[in-house]
């Protein structure tokens, strides 16, 4: 979809005015209402489904596998599959890189440690179920999906459960493969829920910039007219890396002023707490039946 000149000018003028107003009448810090739930895929350790009112939907699954390795950098594998988009496009690859980098940065790898020799290896598969049909001819880059993906991954990780290890933890000397309890009732969460050993997987925020206005969670219409985008990672109550600039639109992009980078970080700091709380509430809801999801 290409917006008409008058249309994009209207949206742009509303955004950059002294009292910014967004096309769907949100506040600059306000998200679109999201729907999410998690733990519904029976075959994976953790899963989540999250979607926007415009139909963009993201399903993520976390699977754990036991490997014998001590190399921390390959314990987390991420694969993003966008419906109708090839795996080797820059969009796909870059989303994967950013999610992987952000997780590697923030993950507490002790949670994955099984024994002295064995680790859990995580496979995070993400599937975007809907790409706007006219994406190829439109003037936005769809990088805004990153924020949805990141929330999906957060929920999936939060809901992931690992089976209980029954063999000995110290197997440095022994030649023995780890064995697990058959009882799924005694499984524990991948990310512990108690306050001492818990940690937050990274969340990636997409901030859109037009003029001097910074907005969170840009919709596709807004993405058309945004001059610049910044992706900011948030984990464990502070801003972390990677932080990067992203072109959200192909029609209206401009260079970014340094002070706006700072401003977009302020915005993230402002909303991050609420987002984390909302996500945690969802992840702590128990699902009784798998059917109720759809």
């Amino acid at each position, binding site marked *: 979809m290409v917006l*008409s000149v008058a249309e994009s000018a209207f949206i742009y003028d509303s955004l950059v005015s002294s009292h910014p107003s967004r096309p769907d009448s949100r506040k600059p810090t306000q998200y679109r209402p999201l*729907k*999410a739930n998690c733990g519904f895929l029976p075959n994976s350790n953790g899963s989540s489904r999250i979607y926007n009112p415009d139909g963009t939907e993201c399903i993520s699954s976390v699977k754990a596998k036991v490997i014998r390795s001590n190399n921390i950098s390959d314990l987390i594998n991420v694969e993003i599959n966008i419906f109708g988009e090839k795996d080797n496009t820059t969009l796909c690859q870059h989303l994967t890189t950013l999610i992987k980098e952000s997780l590697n940065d923030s993950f507490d790898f002790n949670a994955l440690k099984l024994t002295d020799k064995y680790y859990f290896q995580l496979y995070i598969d993400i599937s975007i179920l809907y790409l706007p049909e006219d994406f190829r001819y439109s003037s936005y880059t769809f990088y805004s999906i990153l924020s949805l993906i990141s929330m999906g991954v957060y929920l999936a990780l939060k809901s992931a459960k690992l089976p209980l290890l029954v063999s000995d933890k110290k197997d440095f000397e022994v030649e023995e493969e780890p064995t697990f309890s058959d009882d799924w009732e005694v499984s524990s969460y991948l990310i512990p829920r108690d306050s001492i050993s818990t940690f937050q997987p990274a969340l990636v925020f997409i901030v859109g910039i037009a003029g001097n206005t910074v907005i969170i969670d840009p919709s596709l219409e807004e993405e058309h007219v945004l001059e610049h985008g910044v992706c900011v990672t948030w984990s464990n109550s502070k801003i972390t890396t990677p932080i990067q600039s992203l072109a959200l639109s192909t029609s209206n992009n401009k260079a970014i002023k340094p002070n706006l980078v700072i401003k977009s970080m302020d915005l993230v700091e402002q909303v991050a707490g609420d987002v984390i709380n909302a996500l945690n509430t969802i992840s702590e809801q128990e699902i009784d039946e798998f059917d109720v999801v759809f």
Partner: protein
Amino acid sequence: MSIISITTPVSKNSEIENFSKDDEDESMYDDAIDGVLKKPEKKYIGIDNRSIVTPGELITEDATWMRGHGTYYLDEHTYSSVAGMISKVNKLLSVTPFKGRYRPETGDHIVGRVIGISNKRWKVELGAEHAGVLMLGAVNLPGGVLRRKSDNDELQMRAILKEGDLLNCEVQSTFSDGSASLHTRSLKYGKLRNGMFLKVNSSLIVRTKNHMHDLPGGVSIILGVNGYCWIFKTKNNVENKINAATGKAESEMKAASSSKGYSVGMGSLSITRLEEESSWEIYSDKNDIISANIKETISRYRSCLVALSFCEIAIDVKRLVKAYEISLGYGDVNSLVSEDIKKSIGEDLINSEKMRG
């Protein structure tokens, strides 16, 4: 006002009761066997007693009916091919589907978006099966209605309308494949400016005589029959008269309010006015200066439209204005984003209509 709301999705059919599964399974199984064993009994479903049909349902055994859209003909019986309402016009029998994409009909007032330019025509996206066609000869050319189109116009078609532009037009004729030919040969049609676009399901739009309305708050709306809507700042008074001439009810109101003593007869001046109006101005891309107030009203109307479409309430101008009035009670425009408020606007609206009867 919270920044983010994440809720778990609720299934729409959750209220449907679970009946005992075992019995159901068995009887379904029996039915299946019966179906294999003997030819299903052809039940006559009279047009008189049922007007809602599902695909494959027998509508009539009478071969004298003419078969229209949404039906098919097999062994001298007419069956429905869609889920919808049966409609009869003389001897023509057709089924209008409840849902589905927009199907253009001659005379529909619609909003479309230009998606391509080819030989002497624009391709216009209407949300229908096929893109509509707008011929170069079917637009008001800059410089007056009496001008003939020239080669020069053909060369600079992109200066008139280009890809992405929204326009307001009427279906001139439809072709057998479902595509439509459009025209904008009236001053109420043409390129759209000064506003915001919104797409709703086309089946929600109530077909009325007039689809361009002035709403309270200095805002106008075009409710395209194809579900494409355009909310914009009401044009200033001079142009307003032309709009007014198009709608009788509005013109009476305007006539009463206009200080210049406007009368309906003055609407016939439009030939001379055409020449003034249809300069290049009408194809300009520049928005007028729009105050923050108007912008807020526009986005409030937009939120109301979204709420109506969210609650799947058929949209006409009366309901929209009512929804707008209700929404004012919910305070800030920002709050209308939340789903609960959308739902309660819908409920309030239905309640108020029930009260009025």
